[in-house]
């Protein structure tokens, strides 16, 4: 049996089931794909809207985040942000932190300032050791690529410098968000992702994070903190 015989058989069965000629596929999509120019215009409109509604988006993002169990903090300055993060580290008796290699983290001067206080701050290296490093860490600190106001969702794109383990393995995840990263919702996000992807395809893993991990599998009792982080802190750097 050739490698493709299952494929051929399934496609043939599908076509037969749909009452179509077995060999040809129909043209795709009733909606013509938008041109690059149209997409760019849409994205531009979205960004303008978000800019204009900045304050409402921030309010909404905060209230929705709190609703899903996020510990939300608005930092008026990089200093305030650092102080808050330091407080979380103290409360968790954190010795080891893993973090994104991201501008927002550099802006707060996190790595150096934490090292000064005897807390290790590690970013990824190549190889599988980083997973073990993240596992042993007390806190994972990331930025975000986008945030969605209507559901309090963080959007994280995996890539070099933004390892998935950071926001996943340690029991606490702190995410630093800039106001301009907040979009209203999915209808804003997907065109933007599509526009970005036109040049370089989608990231290997995009993760939506909405609150800490949870389960209700035991008697439908809500338990916060299962496999993913038990605590999610969101710091809005204004």
């Amino acid at each position: 049996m050739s490698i493709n015989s299952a494929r051929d058989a399934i496609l043939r069965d599908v076509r037969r089931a749909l009452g179509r000629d077995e060999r040809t596929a129909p043209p795709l999509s009733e909606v013509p794909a938008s041109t690059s120019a149209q997409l760019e215009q849409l994205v531009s409109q979205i960004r303008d809207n978000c800019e204009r509604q900045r304050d409402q988006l921030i309010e909404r993002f905060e209230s929705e985040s709190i609703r899903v169990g996020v510990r939300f903090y608005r930092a008026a300055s990089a200093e305030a942000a650092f102080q808050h993060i330091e407080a979380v580290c103290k409360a968790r008796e954190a010795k080891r932190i893993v973090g994104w290699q991201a501008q927002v983290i550099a802006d707060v001067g996190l790595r150096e300032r934490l090292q000064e206080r005897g807390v290790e701050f590690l970013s990824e290296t190549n190889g599988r050791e980083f997973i073990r490093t993240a596992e042993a860490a007390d806190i994972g600190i990331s930025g975000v690529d986008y945030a969605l106001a209507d559901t309090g969702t963080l959007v994280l794109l995996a890539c070099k410098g933004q390892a998935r383990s950071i926001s996943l393995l340690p029991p606490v995840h702190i995410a630093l968000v800039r106001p301009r990263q907040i979009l209203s919702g999915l209808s804003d996000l997907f065109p933007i992702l599509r526009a970005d992807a036109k040049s370089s395809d989608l990231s290997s893993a995009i993760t939506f994070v909405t609150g800490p991990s949870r389960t209700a599998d035991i008697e439908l009792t809500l338990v916060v903190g299962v496999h993913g982080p038990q605590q999610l802190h969101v710091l809005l750097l204004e």
Partner: protein
Amino acid sequence: MHVNSESFIQDSTAAVRNKTLQTRLRVLTGFTVKRNLMFAELPDGEALRDRARQIKEHTIGNLDAYLCQLEENVVRLGGTVHWARTGKEARAIVLELARKNNVKRVVKAKSMVTEEIELNEALEQAGIEAVETDLGEYIVQLANEKPSHILAPAVHKSKGDISDLFADKLGVANLKEAEEMTVVARRRLREKFLTADMGITGANFGVADSGTIVLVENEGNIRLSTTVPRIHVALMGIEKLVPSLDDLAVFLKILARSASGQKMSSYVSFITGGRRADECDGAEEFHLIILDNGRTRLLADEEMRESLYCLRCGACLNVCPVYQKIGGHAYGSVYSGPIGSIITPAFAGLEKSKDLPFASTLCGACREICPVRIDIPRILLKLRSDWSEGKRTDGGPPLIEKLAIRLWAFAMRHPSVYQLVFRVPAFLQGPLLEDGKFKHLPLGLGGWTTSRDFPALARRSFRSMWRDQR
């Protein structure tokens, strides 16, 4: 697909008498209450449902094209696509991948498809440890049982049951609260994640134009299964496709609301191929197995086709008065509740599951709540007709039932016979009545009177009264 639905009557009888199960199942109405609140909040909830159905209709109506497009994009972005006509072929593909890569331990996310093809058993037989990582699935796996609900696989178990189970299987005794048990499970499973060679998931959606698999969860075990082990295998039924991310947005807006009354589940993972060359985590290899296993049969039947729109959200289970009383196991199938009652006969054959389409009051609550408006009652009626009137050589109603209906229908076509059928018993019923009612019904109708009285026939029929008042 293997089913145990032939013992439906015994199993459902045992279920309604099982006080623990009854207590456990009562909590499911909470899901429906939350779902209703969440939909009431959406300004365009009904429009979204309509749109979701439209997208599914279009996609399934052009499924071959979208399957090819998905394959093309997955492969372009470094993944491998396999096709499996049957569960047997799918299992063989997984085992071959495991063998080639020297896989000793697999971590599994909750996936109806992998239950459908009985993948765990095949892995175990091949000497590979397959660990369920969703907490509910972990619990039923420890108990050597099957899941009983799409979303809450261990809903039939009490805290006490689970505490005993953990004491017995994990050696950790005296756990009383759900939180304590969850902490234990987290620790045990973290070790499995870190040492697993392969992660196996299903797929909630496959996005054709970007080659992306979308996975929805609350616990984080899917993220871990796709981030830590070297190899990620996703099994996806052919019907899970959507054309684009924009189409997906419609589903993401209503899926979590329908399933568990959340605006958005804790995590949604969009996986496009394995990790890129410069990344340090994420699976190195991504394999997608596209599975038929009877779905093209559903596709070919125009009346059944819409059952392929199902998002596996579980809302119909939560709202079904029958499911609420008998739980998932009584159906004897991986797929229980209203959706299970229509696809199980399609996958496993009506002869093996003939009670499922009939064990319904046709109340329509399922259709009312289904996010994609699948007309389950209509399909149940069609299956009943297939059974009762089907030109089958392999099964059908007993002769006596067919005869009874024919006689009854004959009586209904002849008013004088119709009258006799009722007036004779009305005349004779006197000695059988207690307090003016039947406490016991004869002729095989005694099922009614085990829990209810049955009214006496009226001394005079309406038509007799009508004649008099003219």
